[in-house]
């Protein structure tokens, strides 16, 4: 039995009186790739943002790598060092070069010497296949390239877990593949990944667990085979029919 790296137990979250996460139970093992899908507003982004405390939960327990997520800033910092996040809007730092974007966190959070950080940054740039863009600025890159830089930026901190919040939703169709390829490669290397996405092709290739969320609840969780061919819940069936036919 592989170790559990993320545990969400009975997690509930409200925005004032709007109940956005309802009794979420989720257990992620090391090396698992979990794809989360569902209609917009279902709480999937909120859920993964709770894992690195970009959002705070009100009830329940979240444990990441043995550290419980509470108001304690030390715990939060520890967890964030080990969890990487890739955003839908990339969120690269426009005033820094690509290389500086990636090297920033290793220098200032891990207190690495600049040269070492830059070497690590270059190696990850090569990994996402755009080493020649190192001195360029985010504004000079295409969407697909920017997102790959964003992935390299998170990887440079050597996280054990990577969270992806709709990483390809803001990309033009011809650039989606280059980003998905990087993510597939990551998965093959054994990274623990939670991916919120609508890309079902990717899910079928890479996921070992599919999760369907609706109205704040995890409605269905199953292996991809079962999930796509034999969904149990009606809502899942409806969602799949909408998303797979277009």
């Amino acid at each position, binding site marked *: 039995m592989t170790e559990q790296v993320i545990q969400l137990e009975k997690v509930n979250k409200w925005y004032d009186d709007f109940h956005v996460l309802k009794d979420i139970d989720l257990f992620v093992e090391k090396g698992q790739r979990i794809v989360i899908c569902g209609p917009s507003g279902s709480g999937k982004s909120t859920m993964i943002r709770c894992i*690195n*405390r*970009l959002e705070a939960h009100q009830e329940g327990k979240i444990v990441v790598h043995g550290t419980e997520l509470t108001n304690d800033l030390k715990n939060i*910092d520890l967890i*964030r*060092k080990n*969890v*990487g*996040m890739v*955003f839908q*809007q990339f*969120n*690269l*730092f*426009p*005033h820094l070069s690509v290389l500086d974007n990636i090297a*920033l*966190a290793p*220098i*200032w*959070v*891990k*207190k*690495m*010497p*600049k*040269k*070492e*950080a830059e070497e690590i940054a270059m190696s990850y740039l090569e990994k996402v296949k755009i080493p020649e863009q190192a001195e*360029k*600025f*985010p*504004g*000079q*890159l295409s969407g697909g390239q920017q997102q790959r830089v*964003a992935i390299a*930026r*998170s990887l440079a*901190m050597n996280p054990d877990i990577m969270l992806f919040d709709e990483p390809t939703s803001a990309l033009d169709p011809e650039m989606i593949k280059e980003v998905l390829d990087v993510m597939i490669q990551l998965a093959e290397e054994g990274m623990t990944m939670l991916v919120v996405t609508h890309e079902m092709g990717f899910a079928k290739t890479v996921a070992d667990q599919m999760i369907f969320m609706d109205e704040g609840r995890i409605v269905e969780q199953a292996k991809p085979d079962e999930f796509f061919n034999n969904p149990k819940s009606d809502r899942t069936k409806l969602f799949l029919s909408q998303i797979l036919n277009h």
Partner: protein
Amino acid sequence: MQTNFLRKLIFDEKSRSLLIQTLVIGLFALLIYLIAQQTAYNLEKRGISSGFDFLHVAAGYDISIRLIPFTSEDTHLRAYFVGLLNTLMIAICGCFLATIIGFLVGVIRLSSNWLFRNIAYVYVEFTRNVPVLVQIILYYSILLHLPKIKQAIVLFDSFYLTNRGLFSPQPIFKDGFSIVAWSLVIAIVASFFVKRFLKSKQEASGKQYPIFLINSAIIIFTPIIFYYIMGMPLEFDSPVLKGFNFKGGMVIRPEFMGMLFGLSIYTAAFISETVRSGIISVSKGQREASQALGLKSNLIMRLIIIPQALRVIIPPLTSQYLNLTKNSSLGIAIGYADLVHGFGGISLNQTGRAIEIMLIVMLTYLTISLTISFFMNIYNKSVQFKGNA
């Protein structure tokens, strides 16, 4: 053939534009010529001579606020420089004070406390919607109604606030003070080298050094140490009440203070809005991405938010500085001896050379404006985000 040529003239784009431009230039030149003719005629009729020779004639009036010596026997040209220096002095002091207040209020407007945010908002809205001249005159009136000299308000034992101004001790620089001043300059230069040295060490090892603190200490303590080494070469001539006036010391006139408060408080309101919108303009995602990477709050501010915010803040900030400099011309309303009041006002009345004097005054302001805009453009170009973003 003639009609063809004419047609071509009107309908061909290039020749049409040439035609229009020639017409415009022609009309413009005609207008200038007519006005010049009329003006020359009018001037002659009124017996007003022209030319710039008046600049070397004695001014015949005193200027109470001045940074360089001036008496009524000095020339109008010198009066121009006194006025210019006064304008620059109030502009620099005003911009300095306005920036401090403006940034402070701007930050308060972003505070998480609703009450503080809105108190600042009330200040901003009230100040922005009332003419600066009204505010200047109001502050000046208040300052004019401070107690008379004999009942002065005493601050810190040596400052006297009266309706004739703030009387304060005047620093007298003895021999050896220049060494203290030089030590400060050397300390500042040294701090650049210290910063470079420590920064490269930091990059090489990853260890963080408190560069700002170290440099601040160097800049503050070096002159202090030299001051004591040189035997404290600084004396203060304190104002002493003799009869109906103070003797000794120096005085900051209510005209200056009225302008300073009026201009600073007014401009600060606009600066605070600029600062606030600059910081807001940095998208939320930047902060989230930084947090997700594990960066601490103060580093997020320093490395990510402020650099991006400054790019947005500085252009409108310099335009506010320009506004303040132009508004300093309102000194004439309360008798502050700026360029417009002395040279543009009194000199003009005395010599009658309205055109020449106004021309000089306007060109002066124009030069200041264009200079500041020029440097601002250079700054703007250098910090543009490279690329299309």
